[in-house]
């Protein structure tokens, strides 16, 4: 065992021993108690395992980690309820209709319409599209099936069961266990004994090579999504009678527990995935049966999956530098100049001041506070622009870091609106960022993203709930008071927070244009290449994590001022995901994307509250999810086309149209490998490659933008070879 793993294992063991010592309920551990524990845990483990198996199958064959696995299961459970209960269709017809027809059809549809376009997209985009899907399915279900109505899911084989020890294992739960085992055997057979399974495993190892050897990656991909959705449907239908069928309840959120099982299996091994599911279920039931977690640890049981996920991730082997293969496609984003950013932000502050003035003309107006909330959100996600947008390190915990800043602000002077409290809030999150960067140094990509997700959940349930931080009923804070100025009023605070966002944005853009900013982008594009030219990957990651944490902590201080009153529920892990989603919709690599992320939520609420139409209500439910699906069409984010459309209107950006045309024609180097294989190889591409390699004579768009654009427009197309285009040998 490596030393780092040993340290993690020893630390975990010590922690478990401490928890056991402090919280042991005194319940006697005997054969009966252990038998009961297993009987309690096995059905849960079965559901986790089935759901996790779906995750693993899809991930291993397509590389996409599906956050919407639970929501798809929930949606399919509702479809089954609709057929079985509402339309009284017999189980033997309704069940195959859902599991073997509707769910696979959904999977194939998702694959064809969305997921294939996600291949080779940056991880954060892949993840956020599935988060968008999750919200879409939850919104759809809430729209179609009245959540105040009666949705009782019938159990299989009635209400009886078998006696095991003192417990009755119901037929439904026994069915769950049996189905989980049968599926394990069937999946094993499928993957190792069928041609399709061999193709699936081959595609996992090397998609291109598998295609050359006769596998059909597209078919495999479609089949995997169909299988994944069927497994989600089975898990959803099996657990539905236990859940009360709440759309936003455990029926959808089972996916968080499935993450743990899937990660134990390292997203590859189905047997280990099943072991992970069993371990988690036992841990959950054990905590309930044998531990007394009261007072400050009252909510700790809710964090159990996150804690386990975090520990397992820490025990994973260190990621190696990737040589000789091309990862995600990152188009080099346009970066505004510091001067342009400062100018734009000045306009933004003036606009907000004007809008605020208009809103306050007729008395107190809640939209002022909503706009301030939008700016606070923008400031929080701005912390992700250098970290995720430029350095490529995916963090799903911006709100948790902001939470630390907010708590620090409330503890150290926020009650009096002290400037020092803002400084301390910023400083305190820096070491926290450094601590969290430890897994970042060991983990990459998805594992890192999940580690931050687990961290956010632990912060929510274990850290922010400590009474010393926010008290049991929350903490009140005041807005900034400095040099005789009081920013308590909504209007003046809106101007303040907008100005703060503007200044921070200017700083972030300046950073991007600095050598450090270029190092971040180089590291994102290729850690191996960066390392070979002398970039210290370790140092760069730690610094960017600390920087991001500092910005988030700083933002947290302003979020606290905007909220006025803080409780642990302000910093829920699941509230952070839509923030990241909104940033990705806007554009994860630009400060304008962060602004978009903040304003996006405001617009949805404003529209709904201004025009009381049922259409808007549906839009509020479905809007974020559906918009997220649009990311696929424009991975750079919404601000790019918006900017392209409006920039020429600005007097100092008259050349924007020509510059945009040149940018659009650029090609990302990783795409070169696709030319002639999966897409036509055109003269346009040759021009683009020349530009990327620096061998074209019209590189400078300022020197000859129109000539360049004309050349690109007039470039002839060369037909790809038919066999290469089909991707078959």
């Amino acid at each position: 065992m490596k030393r780092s793993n040993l340290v993690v294992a020893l630390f975990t063991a010590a922690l478990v021993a401490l928890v056991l010592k402090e919280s042991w309920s005194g319940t006697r551990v005997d054969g009966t108690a252990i038998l009961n524990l297993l009987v309690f845990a096995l059905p849960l483990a079965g559901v986790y395992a089935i759901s996790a198996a779906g995750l693993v199958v899809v991930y291993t064959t397509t590389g996409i980690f599906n956050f919407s696995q639970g929501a798809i299961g929930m949606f399919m459970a509702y479809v089954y309820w609709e057929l079985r209960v509402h339309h009284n269709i017999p189980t033997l017809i309704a069940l195959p209709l859902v599991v073997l027809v509707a769910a696979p059809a959904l999977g194939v549809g998702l694959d064809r319409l969305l997921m294939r376009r996600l291949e080779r997209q940056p991880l954060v985009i892949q993840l956020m599209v599935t988060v968008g899907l999750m919200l879409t399915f939850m919104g759809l279900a809430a729209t179609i099936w009245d959540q105040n109505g009666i949705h009782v899911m019938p159990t299989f084989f009635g209400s009886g069961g078998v006696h095991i020890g003192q417990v009755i294992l119901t037929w439904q739960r026994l069915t769950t266990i049996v189905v989980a085992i049968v599926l394990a055997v069937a999946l094993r057979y499928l993957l190792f004994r069928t041609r399709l399974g061999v193709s699936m495993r081959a595609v996992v190892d090397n998609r291109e090579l598998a295609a050359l050897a006769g596998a059909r990656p597209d078919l495999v991909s479609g089949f995997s999504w169909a299988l994944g959705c069927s497994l989600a449907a089975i898990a959803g239908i099996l657990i539905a009678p236990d859940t009360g069928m709440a759309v936003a309840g455990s029926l959808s959120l089972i996916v968080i527990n499935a993450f743990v099982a899937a990660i134990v299996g390292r997203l590859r091994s189905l047997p280990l995935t099943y072991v992970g599911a069993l371990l988690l279920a036992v841990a959950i039931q054990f905590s309930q049966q044998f531990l007394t977690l009261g007072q400050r640890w009252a909510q700790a049981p809710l964090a159990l999956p996150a804690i386990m996920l975090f520990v397992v991730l820490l025990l994973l082997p260190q990621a190696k530098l990737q040589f000789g293969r091309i990862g995600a496609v990152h188009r080099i984003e346009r970066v505004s100049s510091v001067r342009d950013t400062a100018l734009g932000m000045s306009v933004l502050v003036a606009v907000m001041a004007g809008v605020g003035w208009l809103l306050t003309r007729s008395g107190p107006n809640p939209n002022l506070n909503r706009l301030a909330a939008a700016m606070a959100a923008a400031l929080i996600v701005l912390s992700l622009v250098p970290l995720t947008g430029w350095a490529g390190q995916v963090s799903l915990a911006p709100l948790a870091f902001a939470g630390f800043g907010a708590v620090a602000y409330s503890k150290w002077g926020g009650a009096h609106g002290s400037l020092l409290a803002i400084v301390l809030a910023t400083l305190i999150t820096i070491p926290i960022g450094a601590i969290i960067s430890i897994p970042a140094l060991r983990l990459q990509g998805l594992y890192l993203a999940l580690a931050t997700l687990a961290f956010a959940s632990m912060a929510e349930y274990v850290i922010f709930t400590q009474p010393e931080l926010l008290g049991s009923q929350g903490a009140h804070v005041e807005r900034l008071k400095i040099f005789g100025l009081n920013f308590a009023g909504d209007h003046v605070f809106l101007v303040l927070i907008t100005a703060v966002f503007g200044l921070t944005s200017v700083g972030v853009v300046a950073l991007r244009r600095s050598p450090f900013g270029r190092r971040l982008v180089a590291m994102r594009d290729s850690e191996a290449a960066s390392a070979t030219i002398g970039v210290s990957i370790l140092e760069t990651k730690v610094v960017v994590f600390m920087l991001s944490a500092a910005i988030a902590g700083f933002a947290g201080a302003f979020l606290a001022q905007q909220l006025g009153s803080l409780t642990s529920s302000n910093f829920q892990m699941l509230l952070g995901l839509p923030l990241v989603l909104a940033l990705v919709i806007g554009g994860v690599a630009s400060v304008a994307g962060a602004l978009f992320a903040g304003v996006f939520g405001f617009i949805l609420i404003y529209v709904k509250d201004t025009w009381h139409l049922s259409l808007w209500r549906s839009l509020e439910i479905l809007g974020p999810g559906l918009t997220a699906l649009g990311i696929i069409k424009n991975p750079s984010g919404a601000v790019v086309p918006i900017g392209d459309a409006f920039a020429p209107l600005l007097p100092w950006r008259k050349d924007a149209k020509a510059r945009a045309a040149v940018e659009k024609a650029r090609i990302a180097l990783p795409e070169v490998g696709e030319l002639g294989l999966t897409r036509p190889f055109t003269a346009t591409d040759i021009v683009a490659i020349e530009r990327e390699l620096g061998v074209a004579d019209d590189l400078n768009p300022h020197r000859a933008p129109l000539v360049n654009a004309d050349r690109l427009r007039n470039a002839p197309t060369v037909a790809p070879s038919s066999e290469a285009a089909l991707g078959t040998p």
Partner: protein
Amino acid sequence: MKRTGWLALAVALSLTIAACGGSGKGGDSLGGATTTTKSGTDCTGKTLTASEVGVSPTTITVTVIADVGSPLSPGLFQGSMDGVKAWAAYANANGGVACRKIVVKQADSKLNADEAKNAITAACADSTVLLGTTALFLNDMRGAEACKDKAGVATGIPDLAVLQTEPVEQCSAISFAVIPNGGSCPYSGKGVRTFHAVTPAIEWFKKNVSPDLHGIFVVPNDLPSTITSSTSLFTAIEQDGVKQDAEFGISGIATQSGYTPIVQAIKSHSATWVMNGADFSGTLKMRKEAAVQGVTGVKVWACSLQCYAPNFIKQGGAQVEGQYSWLQLLPFEDKGSNPSLDAFLKYDTAPDAFGEQAFSAGLLFQQAIEAIVAKSGPNAITRSALLTQIRTVHAFDAGGMIVKTDVAGKTPSNCIAIVQVKSGAWVRVDPVKKGTFDCTEPGGITTITLDPLKAYHPG
């Protein structure tokens, strides 16, 4: 989703309400008078003016803030909105209030503290009063308290609430619940607090079901506020003589199988008493699991107001048979026994317990306004006058629809009605007579002092 915390929170809040009430016998200017009669204000020959924010010569605007539009739990407290609208329709159909029509503005707080704050800001600008407030996460009353009236004075906007979750609302000088919370004020939000818990049902159970009840208490542990409200009530119940065999903590979104260890504890302790502080869906899952595991020995499946929900019996069927629930308002099954209840049921097409309390809040407002008009005329309606008037109300009962409540004193009542699920329907068991409450149980209010979070010891 921790947004799912609302599930358990809703329950615990309902518990808090049910655990508290008002029974002050002090005199008051309204004297608990029935307000369901036709408006008697005579404005003939008087020119009505816009005397306050939200008051025009022809209308009075009120705002109801409730969590109804949370995207994933739409309609959670729609009952409160419907209840205020039903009262407005009823009042307008009977000549309005102070010769003006009532206009209801609805503000959706979306299970979000910030949206609750925004709703208050909007109401401050256009409404005279907040009626039927049911915002679970309303944890900042500074905006409401600093709200300026038409004269520019920060009198605050009166808040006649249905649910008061947070101490800041419970203890605010401008906030009054039609069925008050029993927590002492002022309270900083942490540490020891005194609670006046409504526990007359315990005496009744001991006398009529079993004198030596003992069993299991289940605390929803999603939020500190859910733990607080449950542990304070459970401690009071223990103090009144129900022995605790074990206490469990569970999430409001736990699955039915999550209740299996709890049900095993019920069996192993041969519990005769079981109470879950979660919302009715938590009790529902627990009852279903108990049925699956063959639990038969429980004599009292206890629940306060939260189980008295339309869907509880519809979803639970035979598995919730025997469930008790104690109320501080008349059950809908009493229709025909009380004019206020009949008016509520006439104007509210989807009645629930929150709606009934919201309707009562409307009646309280109407009663206070009519008292102001009677004293100073129809142009004397101001927020300040309203607050002054409300602070004299020590025995309000919404025409007998709710228990007699010391609104101003924020003190609970010892009166209740106990209902039980029998043959798939809620049936009164105490008192049996429709339209009445039982105020006879000794020790109906149990006073306890504790730090609720420290009192929580699951396992």
